[in-house]
């Protein structure tokens, strides 16, 4: 691969202008806007073009049931294009070409804000008056609404709600192995250390605590130590703080350093990817982990065939110290969503279409499908008619809750497919939730500093924290490391977060 990616994109643009680019004839007749009558039942047949993401595990399928249900209810057919590569690249090329589909899907809010502020997207708030249901939803959900705002106070992507539960993460442990060794659920990190040592004695070839993606999961450990893996908002002190230079964070790193020295985490934990981690977990070489809560079923259903006793169970979050907080990082949100192009000729109709998804009926449709077709109500509880093996199976077969097919979501639909253990886990998990962190929106100028100074800081953090854990740098040098970090411009970054946070607070009060 050449390194001239930006140039490559430019090349792409130029070639597309040569070639005229339009793979779909410009047969978009300007739709006559209809007065937005509330609860209008007469559906108008129309088509919106839509650049959608296609998830590798449940790729976009034109014939999926969910699109038929959309059409039935709203009269809208989505003429979907999926990118050949990553959606981010497809978006940048599409925006640059100036030939935008009516709708686009993004996985990150940052991109929506960026293109929105460049003028490519519609400010959804401008049309709120035509969207009674959306307006009502916004007034009921100020936090979600605020999280969807851009730094200029506008909204460039439709907020979603409910599907985020799929990203819930927490601790899990091999309950059967703990029982066999006479160990109880660890309450603190000291207990955890003792248990891991015991397991290591019984299984010398194992690395009892394993997790994926190197340092990333420190963010899941941090709340139990009253700190964060990055900039975080301290609700007690009402300030923004940088976790990785705090003393509490150092305590966490001391534990990890100890674990590393004694072989309680894999020696190559930095390069443990999903596959390696799954191998470790399924071959009795790792017994405690942190990951998506749905992994409980993922491992149990696969491994009980050979080992009926295998039981990966929900584990309560251990506190960083005796009496400390037993909190997990708040990961149960999804930023992904729909964006509307400012060049679209059908903005009014598009808004009407989306308004439907902020109704109870719309929520039900994207979560459960259609009564009698996909689900039935038994004793007042909805359940799917077909026996889907798991959520992935449901997604593949019906298209429900795939990218571009959800906004408000009833997570019970997914839970109805889970094992009793997972459902219990979902019941227990919320008591270990830390408060949802504010996600302030940044201006382009702030983003520039965050992506340059911020990147340097993140890089230095990762480099040093890694060395502390590996013992390549002595923890006695912690104060020196804190000094180094401050020199790189931590104050600047903290200031940016504060400014952005205050700005969004003000926007909210309007």
């Amino acid at each position, binding site marked *: 691969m050449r390194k001239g990616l930006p140039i490559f994109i*430019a090349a792409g643009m130029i070639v597309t202008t040569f070639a005229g680019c339009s793979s779909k004839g410009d047969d978009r007749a300007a739709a006559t806007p209809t007065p937005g009558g509330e609860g209008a039942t007469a559906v108008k047949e129309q088509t919106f073009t839509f650049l959608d993401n296609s998830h590798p595990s449940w790729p976009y399928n034109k014939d999926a049931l969910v699109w038929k249900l959309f059409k039935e209810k709203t009269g809208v057919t989505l003429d979907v294009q999926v990118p050949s590569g990553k959606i981010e690249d497809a978006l940048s090329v599409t925006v*640059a070409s100036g030939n935008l589909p009516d709708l686009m899907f993004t996985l990150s809010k940052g991109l929506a804000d960026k293109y929105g502020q460049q003028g490519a997207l519609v400010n959804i708030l401008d049309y709120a008056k035509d969207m009674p249901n959306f307006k009502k939803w916004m007034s009921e959900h100020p936090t979600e609404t605020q999280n969807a705002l851009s730094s200029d106070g506008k909204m460039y992507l439709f907020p979603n709600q409910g599907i985020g539960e799929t990203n819930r993460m927490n601790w899990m442990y091999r309950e059967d192995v703990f029982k066999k060794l006479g160990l109880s659920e660890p309450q603190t990190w000291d207990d955890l250390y003792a248990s891991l040592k015991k397991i290591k004695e019984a299984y010398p070839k194992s690395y009892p605590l394993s997790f994926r993606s190197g340092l990333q999961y420190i963010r899941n450990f941090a709340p139990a130590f009253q700190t964060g893996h990055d900039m975080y908002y301290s609700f007690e002190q009402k300030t923004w703080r940088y976790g990785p230079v705090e003393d509490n964070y150092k305590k966490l790193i001391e534990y990890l350093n100890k674990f590393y020295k004694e072989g309680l985490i894999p020696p190559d934990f930095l390069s443990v990817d999903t596959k390696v981690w799954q191998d470790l977990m399924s071959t009795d070489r790792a017994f405690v982990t942190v990951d998506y809560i749905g992994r409980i079923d993922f491992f149990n259903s696969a491994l009980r065939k050979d080992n009926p006793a295998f039981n990966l169970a929900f584990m309560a979050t251990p506190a960083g110290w005796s009496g400390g907080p037993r909190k997990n990082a708040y990961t149960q949100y999804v930023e992904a969503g729909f964006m509307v192009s400012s060049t679209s000729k059908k903005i009014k109709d598009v808004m009407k279409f989306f308004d439907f998804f902020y109704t109870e009926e719309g929520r039900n449709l994207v979560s459960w499908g259609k009564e009698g077709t996909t689900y039935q109500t038994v004793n007042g509880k909805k359940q799917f008619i077909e026996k889907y093996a798991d959520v992935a199976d449901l997604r593949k077969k019906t298209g429900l809750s795939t990218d571009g097919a959800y906004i408000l979501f009833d997570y019970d639909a997914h839970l109805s497919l889970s094992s009793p253990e997972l459902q219990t886990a979902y019941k227990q998990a919320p008591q270990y939730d830390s408060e949802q962190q504010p996600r302030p929106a940044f201006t382009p100028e702030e983003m520039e500093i965050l992506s340059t100074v911020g990147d340097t800081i993140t890089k230095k953090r990762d480099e040093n*924290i890694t060395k502390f854990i590996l013992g390549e740098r002595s923890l006695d040098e912690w104060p020196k490391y804190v000094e180094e970090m401050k020199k790189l411009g931590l104050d600047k970054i903290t200031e940016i977060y504060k400014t952005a946070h205050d700005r969004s607070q003000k926007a909210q009060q309007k």
Partner: protein
Amino acid sequence: MPLNEITAAAQPSVSSAVKRSVRSSPLQRWNKGKYLLLLFLPTLLYYLMFKYAPMFGLMISFKNYNLFKGIWASDWVGLKYYRLFLNNPDSFLLIKNTFLLGLYKLVFGFPAPIVLAILMNEVKNAFFKRFVQTVSYLPHFISNVVVAGMVILFLSPSSGVVNHMLQAFGLDPINFMVKPDLFRPVYVLSEIWQHVGWETIIYLAALTSIDPQLYEASEMDGAGRWKKIVHVTLPGITPAIVILLILNVGHVLDIGFEKVFLLYNPAVYETADIISTYVYRTGIGQGNYSYATAIDLFTGIVSLVFIYSANWISRKVGDTSLW
């Protein structure tokens, strides 16, 4: 590949003969070269479309590029993004890492295919020669993702083959992938393993053009195997070596982003973080195209200086050069 340049370089008499011919009018020259020019046309078009046209996009490094408004309508910001890069505390380190990694690759990676080609040339058994050649260039077709995966797997401190061998010799296992001082050797060696066979092809082609009579003559003069390599084989492929060396010097800063990105981790940033991985994290990753392009152009200028100097030196020292 500049095979034509190599043959041209090997036969200086042809070009000088053209120069000595009577000056002909442009029209005559056009008529004479019609078909050759027609042959050249696709190449010209390719370069115009994919190399020269995109250069107009370099403008965005001096603008605050707004994708939606387009290049023309974006605001000029002068050298802002260049300053941003040079003011970054890491910029010198990034340039140094990029340069050193490229230099190591050149110093160790460049001679490897030459040595291999000469060794193959000495092998008389045709079947064995074929076999070695095929086996050595197979890795070239494995994707970087797979190669990086293999490297990490082989060098893993817990389950890697290499560490098993070390332990068999009674040594302690080494955690290769987290040692900053081992990153460059690991990268360069894997790079050689991947491409050495592929790069021998051109040398083998150059070797076939050496006149067998030269070997016979040197044998008459009593040259052994070694002497023949030194006095016949090497001079025979020198033009090819020099041309490729100059081209490679221009690519010193042009390290493939993919493999470094797949192999590095925070523990080895101090030696492994290079310009392209930085651009990926801050530019492409964040959609900061102006910044990424500025760094790109900067790197391009440095590469140009390199290739120019290499050419100048080779013109002074030897008689082969690109221009």
